[in-house]
């Protein structure tokens, strides 16, 4: 299992600033839809009892329908767990050094990308629609240098705050990198003089 303490290639002074998943409302919406789907066999049974009892009296038809019901609930449960994992395994981590983007796209498609903070050029937050505004969730788009692709934190809580803090981190990291570069240039010059 993945332990936050042991991030891959973690530096000694690296600290996790944000550990993000989609907003809780997204999984509630999925559970709600699956809750409705769970009622379909019960509704079907109610229709049979009230309108087509002959099916329930026939042993063969009954066996067929019961097995169909078991199959339905097996796959309903399987797909619900799959939807949960799809939600749970999508992670965005912002540390004091980098942004890590881990996305599970389907069962056999896992995408992991890592971007150094000093290479980030632009951070934009978006909140579109009534529910995202009310519940305060949305997207954060991060544009990195040297790559046309944008990292997108999808449906995360407090997108504006996350974007603001990420910008501050990027600026801070760029200053550190600039200072380090200056020091290195000075060292090079001194070596040149000697």
């Amino acid at each position, binding site marked *: 299992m993945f332990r936050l303490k042991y991030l891959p290639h973690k530096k000694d002074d690296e600290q996790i600033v944000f550990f993000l998943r989609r907003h809780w409302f997204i999984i509630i919406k999925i559970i709600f839809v699956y809750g409705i789907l769970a009622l379909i066999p019960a509704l079907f049974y109610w229709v049979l009892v009230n309108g087509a009892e002959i099916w329930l009296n026939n042993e063969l038809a009954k066996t067929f329908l019961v097995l169909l019901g*078991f199959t339905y*609930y*097996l796959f309903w449960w399987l797909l619900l*767990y799959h939807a949960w994992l799809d939600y749970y395994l999508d992670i965005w981590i912002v540390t004091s050094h980098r942004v890590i983007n881990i996305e599970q796209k389907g069962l056999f498609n896992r995408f992991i990308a890592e971007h150094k903070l000093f290479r980030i050029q632009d951070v934009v937050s978006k909140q579109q629609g009534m529910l995202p505004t009310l519940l305060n969730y949305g997207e954060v788009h991060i544009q990195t240098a040297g790559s046309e692709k944008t990292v997108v934190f999808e449906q995360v809580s407090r997108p504006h705050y996350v974007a603001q803090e990420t910008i501050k981190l990027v600026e801070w990291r760029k200053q550190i990198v600039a200072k380090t570069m200056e020091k290195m240039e000075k060292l090079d010059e001194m070596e040149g003089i000697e």
Partner: protein
Amino acid sequence: MEIPIIIFLYLYLMMVTFFILFSIFLVYHALRFGTATITNLFTMGLFLAVAAGILISSYAYISGVDWELVIKLF
């Protein structure tokens, strides 16, 4: 023409096999890529418990059915 109802059982067992294979993949993903948290372990345990419940219930039902019966079409 007669069709033995055991065909329903075979079809159901095929579905159960598919379910088990798919479940193994999902649990593997949760174990391999999930975070080491109570939530991950709890949801995995819940998934396995409910799946076992459905399978045991279906076994209880299946064992009570007379699979010698046939469907007469003509």
